[in-house]
C-alpha cells in the first residue's frame, strides 16, 4: 500500500521542482546542515527519483533478509540465532529507512498540496479581476451607446432655414467664419438666433396683450355709455309719440312691424327685409319729395302672429315625417278613416301655408296698384304669390282684354319661361308622389303661383343639377333680384294697363295712334280695322297660315292669341297675333292672310311675306317712345298702311275692263324692286313718299 501511494505522489514532486533540485540541495547542504535538522528542508534536497530507487532497493533487501531468516529458521540450529539477530538488525535498519522515506513522502505530499492550493488561489484572484474588468467594459459600452442615442431637445425646434439664418441674423450671432465649417457651432448659433427671436416675439405678444386689455376696457366704457343711453332714448321715444302722430310719421308702427317680422319664416323674412330696404332706397332717391309720403312700394305683414308663435312651440309639427307619423297614429285611434279622406288630410297638410304672409303694394305712376301677396308653403319649402291689380279709375273691361289683368296670368312669364305652374323645388315631386298629387298646377289658383322669381326674392335657390338637402334663404340672392324684378313688375302692369286701354278702342275698330308716333304713318290711311277678338290657343294652332310660327316654337301656351281683321273695299286681311306675356320687350308676332283675288299668304305671295317681315322683324322702329306701350297699335296701324300700299301698287290686269279698284294715291319712287318684286313698303316721314327698304 505504501508503495502505491508513494508511486502516486512522486511525479507531482518531480514536476513541481525537478530541475532545480540539484542546485538547491547543494546550497542547503553547505549552509543549513550544521544548524538544525529539518526534515522539511531535507525533502527539498533529495531527489524523489532516487528515493524511489532507494525504496525499491530497501524493499528488495527486506524481502531477501526475510527470506533468509525464514530459511534459517526453517533449518534451525544454534548458530542460527546469531545470524538471525544479525539479519534482524539489518532489517531494522531497512525499516528505519522505510520510515524515513514514508515521512519524506508525506512532507512532499503536503508541500505539493500547498503549492497547488497557492496556485489555485492565485488563479482565482486573477479570474475575479478579469470578471471585474469585463463588467467595467460592458458598463462603459452601455454608457457610450446611451450617449450616442441621446436626443437633444433642440432637434425638435423648428429652426429657420440656413440661408434665412445667414441673411437675417446679426453677425455677432451668426459668426459666419466660425460656423460655416463647423456644424456644431452652426447649430448653436442658430439656436441662439432662435432664442433671440423668440424673446422678441414674446415681447411683442406682451405688448399686444396689453393693447387688447386697453381696448377691452374702452369697449366696456362705451357699453356702459350705451346702456345708459337706452332709457334716455326710450323716454325720448315716448315723448315723441304725439309729435309722430301729428306729423304722420309712423316710425313706431314700422317698429311694431319689425317685431312681427321676427315670426316670419326665413324666406318671407328675407323678402320682407329686402323689399322694405328697396322701398326705402326708392323713397330716398326721390329726394325732392318728403320721404314716406309718396311711396311706390309699401310692405306689410298679414296674418295672425299668435298662430305663427304656436307653430314654433311644438317643433315637430312643421316636420314632414312627423306629420306622417301623426297621421298614422290618428289612423289607429280613429278606427281607420277611408283612404281618400286620409290622403286628403295629407294633401292639405302638405300644402299648408304659413299663417303669416307678406303684402307688397307696388304703385305705378297712374295710381294703379299691383297688390302682391306672398305665401310660404312650409312643407314644400316654396313661396307662392297672388297678384291683383287695382286701378285709380273704374275700367270698362273689353271682352278681348279678359286675360290681361286676371290674377292667373298677369304675372305669367315675367322672366322667359317662368309660367309658375310647376314647383321650382325638385324635391317636391317625391313628396307629391307620396300623397298622390299629380302636379301643383291644379292647386295654383288656391295657393298662388310659385314663380321662380318669387323664390329668388325669398332668397330660395333650387339648382337643377344638384338637388340640395336644405335650401337656406339667402339675402344676397334676394337683393340681387329685387330691383330688376320690381322694375319688371312695374313695366308688366303698365304695359298690361296700356293694352287694356288699347283693346277697348281696338274693339271699336279704332287703332289709337298717339301723337308722338304719328310720324310713322302717312296722314291718310284708308284700310280700317274692323275686328279684334281673342282666339284660343288651339284655334290658333289650327289656322292654316300660322304653321311657320308654330314650327318655330313661338306659339307656346303661355301666350295670348288674337285675331285682327283689316278691310279695304273687297280686300280682307286677316292677322293672327301672338302676344307674348313679355310684351312689350318681346314683340307681338303677326301672321297674315289676304283674301283678295284669291287667298294670299306668305307661302304663295312674297309681298305678304314682306309685310309680315315689316311688322315682325322691323318692329323696333314702331316701338315709339319708351317704354313702347304703343307697339301693338303701331303695328296694327302699320299693317293698315302696308295693306294700302299692297293694294294700290298691285299691277293692273289689262284684260279686265273698268277702272282699278284701288287707284294709286301713295307716292312711290318705284313699284317693284329686286328679284322677288317687292313693293315699296317703307314710309319716309317728312317727304311722305314710299320707297323700298
Amino acid at each position: 500500500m505504501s508503495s502505491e501511494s508513494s508511486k502516486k505522489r512522486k511525479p507531482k514532486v518531480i514536476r513541481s521542482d525537478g530541475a532545480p533540485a540539484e542546485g538547491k540541495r547543494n546550497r542547503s547542504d553547505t549552509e543549513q546542515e550544521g544548524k538544525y535538522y529539518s526534515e522539511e528542508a531535507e525533502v527539498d534536497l533529495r531527489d524523489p527519483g532516487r528515493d524511489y530507487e532507494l525504496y525499491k532497493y530497501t524493499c528488495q533487501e527486506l524481502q531477501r533478509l526475510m527470506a533468509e531468516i525464514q530459511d534459517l529458521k526453517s533449518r534451525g540450529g544454534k548458530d542460527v540465532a546469531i545470524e538471525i539477530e544479525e539479519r534482524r538488525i539489518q532489517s531494522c535498519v531497512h525499516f528505519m529507512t522505510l520510515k524515513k522515506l514514508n515521512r519524506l513522502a508525506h512532507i512532499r505530499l503536503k508541500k505539493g498540496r500547498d503549492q497547488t492550493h497557492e496556485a489555485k488561489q492565485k488563479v482565482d484572484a486573477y479570474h475575479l479581476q478579469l470578471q471585474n474588468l469585463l463588467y467595467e467594459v460592458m458598463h462603459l459600452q452601455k454608457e457610450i451607446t446611451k450617449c450616442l442615442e441621446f436626443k437633444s431637445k433642440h432637434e425638435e425646434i423648428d429652426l429657420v432655414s440656413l440661408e434665412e439664418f445667414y441673411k437675417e441674423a446679426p453677425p455677432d450671432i451668426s459668426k459666419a467664419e466660425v460656423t460655416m465649417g463647423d456644424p456644431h457651432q452652426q447649430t448653436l448659433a442658430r439656436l441662439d438666433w432662435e432664442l433671440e427671436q423668440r424673446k422678441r416675439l414674446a415681447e411683442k405678444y406682451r405688448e399686444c396683450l396689453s393693447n387688447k386689455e386697453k381696448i377691452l376696457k374702452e369697449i366696456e366704457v362705451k357699453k356702459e355709455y350705451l346702456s345708459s343711453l337706452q332709457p334716455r332714448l326710450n323716454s325720448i321715444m315716448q315723448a315723441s309719440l304725439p309729435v309722430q302722430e301729428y306729423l304722420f310719421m309712423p316710425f313706431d308702427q314700422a317698429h311694431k312691424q319689425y317685431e312681427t317680422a321676427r315670426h316670419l319664416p326665413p324666406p318671407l323674412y328675407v323678402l320682407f327685409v329686402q323689399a322694405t330696404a328697396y322701398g326705402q332706397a326708392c323713397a330716398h332717391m326721390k329726394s325732392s319729395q318728403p320721404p314716406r309720403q309718396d311711396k311706390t312700394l309699401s310692405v306689410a305683414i298679414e296674418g295672425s302672429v299668435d298662430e305663427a308663435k304656436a307653430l314654433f312651440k311644438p317643433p315637430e309639427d312643421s316636420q314632414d315625417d312627423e306629420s306622417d307619423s301623426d297621421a298614422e297614429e290618428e289612423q289607429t285611434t280613429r278606427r281607420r278613416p277611408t283612404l281618400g279622406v286620409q290622403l286628403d288630410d295629407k294633401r292639405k297638410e302638405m300644402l299648408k301655408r304659413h299663417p303669416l304672409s307678406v303684402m307688397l303694394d307696388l304703385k305705378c305712376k297712374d295710381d294703379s296698384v299691383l297688390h302682391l301677396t306672398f305665401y310660404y308653403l312650409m312643407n314644400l319649402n316654396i313661396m307662392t304669390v297672388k297678384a291683383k291689380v287695382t286701378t285709380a279709375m273704374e275700367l270698362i273691361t273689353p271682352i278681348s282684354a279678359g286675360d290681361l289683368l286676371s290674377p292667373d296670368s298677369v304675372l305669367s312669364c315675367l322672366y322667359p319661361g317662368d309660367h309658375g305652374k310647376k314647383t321650382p323645388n325638385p324635391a317636391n315631386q317625391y313628396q307629391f308622389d307620396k300623397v298622390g298629387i299629380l302636379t301643383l298646377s291644379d292647386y295654383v289658383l288656391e295657393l298662388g303661383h310659385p314663380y321662380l322669381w318669387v323664390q329668388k326674392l325669398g332668397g330660395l335657390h333650387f339648382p337643377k343639377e344638384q338637388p340640395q338637402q336644405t335650401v337656406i334663404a339667402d339675402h344676397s340672392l334676394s337683393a340681387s333680384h329685387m330691383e330688376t324684378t320690381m322694375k319688371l313688375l312695374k313695366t308688366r302692369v303698365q304695359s298690361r294697363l296700356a293694352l287694356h286701354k288699347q283693346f277697348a278702342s281696338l274693339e271699336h275698330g279704332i287703332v289709337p295712334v298717339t301723337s308722338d308716333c304719328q310720324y310713322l304713318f302717312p296722314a291718310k290711311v284708308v284700310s280700317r280695322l274692323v275686328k279684334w277678338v281673342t282666339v284660343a290657343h288651339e284655334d290658333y294652332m289650327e289656322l292654316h297660315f300660322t304653321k311657320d310660327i308654330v314650327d318655330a316654337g313661338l306659339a307656346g301656351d303661355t301666350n295670348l292669341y288674337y285675331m285682327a281683321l283689316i278691310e279695304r273695299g273687297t280686300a280682307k286681311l286677316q292677322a293672327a297675333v301672338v302676344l307674348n306675356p313679355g310684351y312689350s320687350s318681346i314683340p307681338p308676332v303677326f301672321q297674315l292672310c289676304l283674301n283678295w283675288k284669291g287667298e294670299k299668304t306668305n307661302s304663295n305671295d312674297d309681298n305678304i311675306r314682306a309685310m309680315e317681315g315689316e311688322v315682325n322683324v322691323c318692329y323696333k322702329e314702331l316701338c315709339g317712345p319708351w317704354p313702347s306701350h304703343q307697339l301693338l297699335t303701331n303695328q296694327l296701324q302699320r299693317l293698315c298702311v302696308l295693306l294700302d300700299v299692297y293694294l294700290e301698287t298691285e299691277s293692273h290686269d289689262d284684260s279686265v275692263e273698268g277702272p282699278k279698284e284701288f287707284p294709286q294715291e301713295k307716292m312711290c319712287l318705284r313699284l317693284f324692286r329686286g328679284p322677288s318684286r317687292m313693293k315699296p313698303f317703307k314710309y319716309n316721314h317728312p317727304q311722305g313718299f314710299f320707297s323700298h327698304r
Partner: protein
Amino acid sequence: MERAVPLAVPLGQTEVFQALQRLHMTIFSQSVSPCGKFLAAGNNYGQIAIFSLSSALSSEAKEEILHFSLAHDGPVYSMVSTDRHLLSAGDGEVKAWLWAEMLKKGCKELWRRQPPYRTSLEVPEINALLLVPKENSLILAGGDCQLHTMDLETGTFTRVLRGHTDYIHCLALRERSPEVLSGGEDGAVRLWDLRTAKEVQTIEVYKHEECSRPHNGRWIGCLATDSDWMVCGGGPALTLWHLRSSTPTTIFPIRAPQKHVTFYQDLILSAGQGRCVNQWQLSGELKAQVPGSSPGLLSLSLNQQPAAPECKVLTAAGNSCRVDVFTNLGYRAFSLSF
C-alpha cells in the same frame, strides 16, 4: 313637312328676335367656290354665309356653316365666282371678296365699285351679275334699266347698254358669239352685241298670245340660253324660244311664275313660286317635280366644278333660311341652314 313639336325652351327677347329674323329670311343668291367645295349664299339682311359642301356631304355630315358676315347694307341679290374672287352685289354696289380669305373669320372686302348712276333719289339695286370670260369683264344690271360692263382687270366701267324701260331682272350669256341676253320688268328680252354695244334683237314676250298672262304681269324673271335656244319665264308663262326666228316653240304648262331657269344636259330646270324644282323635257313634258323645304324658290345652283366631283350637287334657295341640297336630281337630301 310634319308639324314640329313646339319647343319647350323658354324664349327671351333676343331668341324671339332671332327666330323671327330667320323666319323672314330670304336667300336671294348662291355661288359655288372655284374649288367646288364651298357654297356662298346671300340673304335679304345683307349676310353672306359660306357653307362647306364637302364636309356636309362627307360621311360625318357636320359643320355645315363656316361663318357668315354682314357683307352688304341691303339684300345680296346676286353673286358670281371668278377663279379667285367672289363678287356680290345688292344695293347699288358690287363687292369683291377673296375666296381664300372668305373661309377665315373677319374677312374684309377686296374692293367695291358702284356703276355710274344717273338718279340720285334712290340707289338702284343690282339684280344680276354676269361674267364674260372672253374679255374678262363683268356685266351688271338692275334698277337703273341699264347694263354696265366693268373691266375686271382695271375695275373701270367701260360700256353702258341702254334700252330697257323698266328694271332688269336677269342676264344670260350666249357662249359662242359675244352676245348677252337681258330680261326685265318691262317684259322684253333684249339681245345685245358686246362688240358694237348695240341692241340686236328684242322679243316682247307678253305680246305673244301663247305665253302672255296679263294677271301675272309682263315681267321676265328668268332667262337661260343654249346656242340658238332661249328659255324665259316670269309673269308670262315659261317658254322655250328659237332665237333666230324669235318664235316660241314650247310653252311649259306651269301656272306659278318662275324665278330661275337653267339648261341641264337635255333638261330644263326651273323654280319659282311653290316648293318644287321642276324638270322639263324640251318637248314641254314635266319630267319631275322635286319638293324642297322653302315655300318659294329664287335661285338654283348646279355645282359642276370639275375640281370637286364628289360635291356635284344641285342647290336651291328662296323664301326661307334654308338652302336645299339635291345630291341627285331625284330628291332633296338635306338642307343647309343660316
